């Protein structure tokens, strides 16, 4: 769950970042549209005489995305950005690296799960994320991770007959 509202973003830096993000996304949308046209050029022509074919709808969506990219860029350009900015707080500076670290832990465990299976990877992810969020009591953290991982495991595998990954090493 999210926290109570964060300290207010430094005046000017939030809107500036938002404008850059919108402009970058507008550019990405154009790239996606071009890629769609390129990828759909190889689709076969419809065999049914009255069908529009497999490429029609994706291309319509791609054209609309290009139009929206233009509107997005225009809207970003029109949006007022207050002049001057103060540095973000220390907490705000640490927020994104912490999130990226959390994403990294999840992705690493996702890769590991395919080799070692659910239990070791899930335990590692659990402990890693709890430590990332500030827990420092190693024993308590590990016990909580073991208990909750076991609960999820038994609920799905034994309770609902839903198998969980065993991992290539143990299959």
């Amino acid at each position: 769950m999210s926290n109570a509202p964060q300290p207010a973003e430094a005046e000017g830096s939030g809107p500036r970042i938002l404008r850059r993000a919108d402009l970058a996304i507008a550019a990405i949308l154009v790239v996606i549209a071009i890629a769609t046209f390129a990828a759909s050029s190889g689709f076969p022509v419809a065999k049914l005489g009255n069908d529009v074919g497999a490429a029609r709808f994706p291309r319509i969506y791609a054209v609309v995305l290009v139009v929206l990219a233009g509107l997005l860029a225009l809207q970003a350009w029109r949006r007022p950005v207050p002049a001057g900015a103060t540095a973000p707080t220390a907490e705000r500076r640490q927020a994104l690296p912490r999130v990226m670290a959390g994403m990294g832990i999840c992705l690493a465990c996702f890769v590991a799960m395919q080799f070692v299976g659910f239990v070791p990877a899930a335990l590692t992810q659990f402990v890693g994320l709890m430590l990332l969020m500030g827990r420092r009591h190693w024993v308590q953290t590990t016990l909580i991770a073991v208990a909750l991982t076991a609960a999820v495991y038994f609920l799905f595998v034994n309770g609902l007959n839903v198998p969980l990954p065993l991992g290539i090493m143990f299959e």
Partner: protein
Amino acid sequence: MNEISMLFAGFGALMADPLALVLAVVGVTVGIVIGALPGLTATMGVAILLPFTFGLDPLAGLLMISGVFFGGIYGGSITAILLKIPGTPAAAATAMDGFELTRKGQAGIALGTATLSSFLGGTLSILVLVFMAPVLAGFALKFSAAETFALAVFGLSIISSISGNSPIKGLVAGFLGLLLATVGLDPMAGLPRFTGGFTELFTVPFIPVMIGLFAAAEAFKSLETMDLKGRSAAALGRIIPPWPVFRPLIGTIGRSSALGIGIGIVPGAGADIAAFVAYNEAKRFSHTPEEFGKGSLAGVAACESGANGCTGGALLTMLTLGIPGDAVTAVMLGALTLQGLQPGPLLFQEHTDLVYTLFAGMLVCYVLMLVIGLGLLRFMGRILRMPKSVLTPAILLLCVVGTYAINNSMFDVGIMFAAGIIGYFMQKWDYPASPVVLALIMGPMAEANFRRALSLSGGSLDFLYTRPITVVLLSVAILTLLMPLYRGFFGRPVASKDTSVSGGVE
């Protein structure tokens, strides 16, 4: 009226069959639990329990499955409200306002409202099924590909309504979702599109994307701050809403239930579509539409009553015409056939007693859903007492397991994480995630039915303007789409938004 006396006779027959009542309790409980768990849907629950019905008498077996169906649709709202993890696709709409209410410390009221609304919507839909089945069956027959296409377009037009502060960004999210929905097998020719050779992409990875965009993204957002003091994530508070708070919602519940029943009757349109359409109409009729998306009880009530109102409509089409309205009723159709019962007009004539006993049992199932649901809420609400430093990793673990459970595929888990990362940045930069989910639901329905309608009309587009239901739906869709867009783009420029506060409003 004849139906009333037959219904009372059905109650009498039901009371004489305690096994059926016990299995109804089992079905509802299993349904609520399965519905609450991400990745497990009502369809899966029905499919899991179907083999157990082989040895049972028809009434007991069908009631158990009905219980799973009703409980599953409702159960998705619990985790949607508490944790922003929609347990079922229909709950994605509930998560929009339900989770905002949890943030405000009103999780209990939101859950109680969802439970009561589900009960009222579902009960109303069963009563409509009992008394109006033959009349409404005729309405279902008027829907062909053209009308279903128009319904899908109407559903898609809701994107502009749930786009929060920026309709442009909402449309971007929506059309990206539509493009994503074209990944997979072409609906007419069956050829792979944009799959890159991955067979896992032959079907739209809708649920992994939904879990990622909603639940994983929110969990990643929670990582922004450390939880040094181990505070509880949120408070549950009071569960049953006070009467002065609930009374204004009754009109919304009635309207949403009617919409749900109407949409449930249409084959191929399920609870997820009903929930979003009901939400949109509740916002349209509200005196305070600006509160939707920021924690409106009316939003929660509309979604839940609309989704559960769909159950009676879907059952109506299945029982009277033998046409399953969605995946769950398709499985139930199989269950009926296995029991030697052929759905259709003759079912009501040849098995009248059984049919009305089944209707009575369905009403009892909804009462059980209300009682069991309210009883489980305090227990499930303890989830909120967990510190964030424990709850956030638990949510991410549940996302992994729930996603894997769909197809036993780590590929789906990878998609879920990708969607979670994208969803996090979408939140940071004010791009709403709900339009993506809506587009993934409606996009395939729109394209497939448009192309089908075009084939049926011999390549002519006249089906767009010669069929009354199609014209009405498309006209409303155009109005729904254009008005917020016009206000958003040609109104005053939006003031700089503090992106660190709460991200995009969905």
